[in-house]
């Protein structure tokens, strides 16, 4: 099992950096607050978005079939993939048909989830992540630590070193403007030479048979404009009824993600370009299973990242501590619901403060889901020790005279127990806190004495 607390410990070991990370994300969260406050109808929009998503997810087969039919009418090729393996194979099959070797990819959390980069690289394809944050992370041999800000765990000095090593930028030069311009030059070559472009999908419009990709950099637009084939990978939950609903989501997405009123490029793909191919791979990979679970609400997520920026645990533990593709509150829900044995520690990476619920543009009750998942987590093998301990404690509490006896013993022995034992490794709570000195007499004893005196 992955252990969030142990991983978080590594992150907080560098306390200056952990503090900086916390502040950087809180800054983004505050920008979101400003943007939200400028729309009087903000709360209504969130509510409606949640309803639309819920309705679509509950009738997903209808909307997916409609999307497929309409998209095919528009000349879009539709593929279906049960799992990550089939998604990767399908993408490779299309690349092979096209004789494509050089691929540019814009941000797609689904492709991260499927391990598409590794899959293609192992088979000799050259795949370049074109989102600046993802490019930094890719050159570094690292993984994104945030779904919207993939390189938020790195400082500009780190980026400077990474670029110096891989792109021969000036050593020690860490001006973001300079570094961005150098990345632009280097990536421009990749764009111009690309045979194929892979993108994610932010929203698929069932009635229009079209889909929307949102970026600030324009990398999805440039990549797909140059390459002969455009392959878009989407999870089954990305479909919404029509462009009418898109109005709701485009108003919420960027405001929630970065505090912008809208992403710079909100691009609608409906037909392949002249002489090109436009392919959409619709991927399940565990989502249909989620639909029939108690966590189906998690399928409403539009991947804005607001819950991460708001989460006091995420901000202080970093995205990598979650050990899952998607970190933060929504990542904990998705990972734990999908594979409890592996991710049983994630429902506990939460203070139940509900800050995430209050910002989620799809009105997902994230903290309720996490609370519910704790009940399942505690049943998993990883928590056998804790479970036994809690059962023993419950048993003790159900036996008042035994409890009184044990506590009496503790009060007497307390002065003689060496610190070494009392604050031994087993006492996680005692690591940062002192145990209170036990009162000399218990409440029950005092109460008895007082009523005697009457």
């Amino acid at each position, binding site marked *: 099992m992955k252990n969030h607390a142990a991983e978080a410990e590594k992150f907080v070991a560098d306390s200056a950096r952990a503090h900086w990370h916390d502040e950087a994300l809180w800054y983004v969260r505050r920008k979101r607050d400003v943007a939200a406050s400028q729309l009087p109808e903000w709360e209504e929009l969130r509510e409606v978005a949640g309803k639309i998503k819920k309705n679509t997810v509950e009738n997903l087969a209808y909307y997916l079939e409609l999307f497929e039919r309409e998209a095919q009418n528009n000349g879009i090729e539709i593929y279906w993939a*049960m799992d990550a393996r089939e998604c990767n194979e399908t993408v490779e099959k299309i690349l092979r048909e096209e004789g494509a070797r050089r691929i540019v990819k814009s941000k797609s959390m689904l492709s991260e989830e499927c391990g598409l980069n590794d899959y293609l690289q192992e088979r000799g394809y050259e795949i370049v992540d074109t989102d600046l944050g993802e490019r930094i992370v890719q050159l570094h041999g690292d993984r994104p630590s945030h779904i919207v800000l993939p390189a938020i765990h790195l400082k500009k000095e780190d980026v400077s070193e990474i670029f110096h090593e891989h792109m021969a930028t000036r050593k020690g030069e860490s001006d973001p403007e300079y570094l961005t311009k150098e990345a632009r030059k280097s990536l421009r070559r990749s764009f111009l030479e690309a045979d194929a472009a892979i993108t994610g999908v932010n929203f698929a419009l069932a009635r229009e048979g079209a889909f929307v990709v949102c970026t600030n950099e324009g990398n999805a637009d440039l990549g797909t404009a140059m390459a002969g084939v455009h392959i878009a990978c989407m999870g089954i939950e990305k479909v919404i009824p029509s462009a009418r609903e898109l109005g709701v989501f485009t108003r919420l997405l960027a405001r929630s993600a970065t505090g912008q009123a809208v992403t710079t490029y909100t691009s609608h793909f409906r037909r392949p370009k002249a002489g090109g191919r436009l392919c959409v791979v619709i991927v399940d990979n565990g989502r249909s299973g989620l639909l029939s679970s108690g966590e189906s609400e998690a399928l409403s997520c539009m991947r804005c990242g607001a819950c991460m920026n708001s989460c006091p645990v995420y901000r202080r533990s970093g995205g990598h501590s979650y050990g899952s593709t998607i970190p933060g509150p929504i990542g904990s829900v998705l990972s734990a619901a999908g594979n409890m044995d592996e991710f049983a520690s994630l429902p506990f990476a939460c203070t139940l403060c509900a800050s995430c619920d209050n910002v989620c543009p799809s009105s997902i009750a994230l903290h309720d889901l996490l609370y519910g998942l704790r009940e399942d987590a505690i049943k998993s093998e990883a928590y056998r020790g804790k479970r036994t301990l809690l059962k023993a404690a419950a048993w003790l509490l159900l036996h008042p005279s035994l409890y009184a006896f044990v506590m009496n013993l503790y009060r007497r022995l307390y002065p003689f127990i060496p610190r070494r034992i009392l604050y031994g490794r087993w006492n996680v709570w005692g690591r940062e806190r002192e145990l209170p000195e036990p009162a000399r007499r218990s409440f029950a004893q005092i109460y008895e004495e007082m009523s005697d005196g009457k």
Partner: protein
Amino acid sequence: MGSREKILSALGTARNRGFEVELSFPILSFGDRVCAFVENLKKAGGESIVVEGELSKILAREVGDADSVVDTTSILYGSFSYKKGEEVDVAILGADLAVAENGALWIDTEDRYPRSLLTLARKIVVILEEDAIVDTMHQAYERVDFSKVSYALFMSGPSKTADIEQSLVFGAHGAVAMTAVLIPSKRA
């Protein structure tokens, strides 16, 4: 059974559209949509110019001494040619829809030129009638006729990134600058 059938059957047998969610709340509106548009485009890093006098003069000024210009509106130059993958200094485009709440302009290539023009032009100049500005994305999508669209986008300002320590830098990949040229409405 193929994956398509497996996935669809895992989603249940019901095949209906559920209900249509009502948007039954007051939606933001602006007293002066042009002013709001200009302000919001500015926040997104774009400029605006309201046309006074001759349009072609303003365009000429915007173009400056650029070497390569593609004028898809044929206002400044009679015709244009653009090949996929060409990097140019300025692209002049027309738009017939824009959004006040976020400064986004609806740019539809209408398959008249290769899509790469929109990202390989260093500067994008978009001509727009002020009448074409709507309040929010809701009204914007009501106006779009998708049956004619191949590829179209809402573009709000130049390409940008803040992936290095949250420092905003313009010109991540696409245009480094964007100007909206607004033609005052005839009624005014």
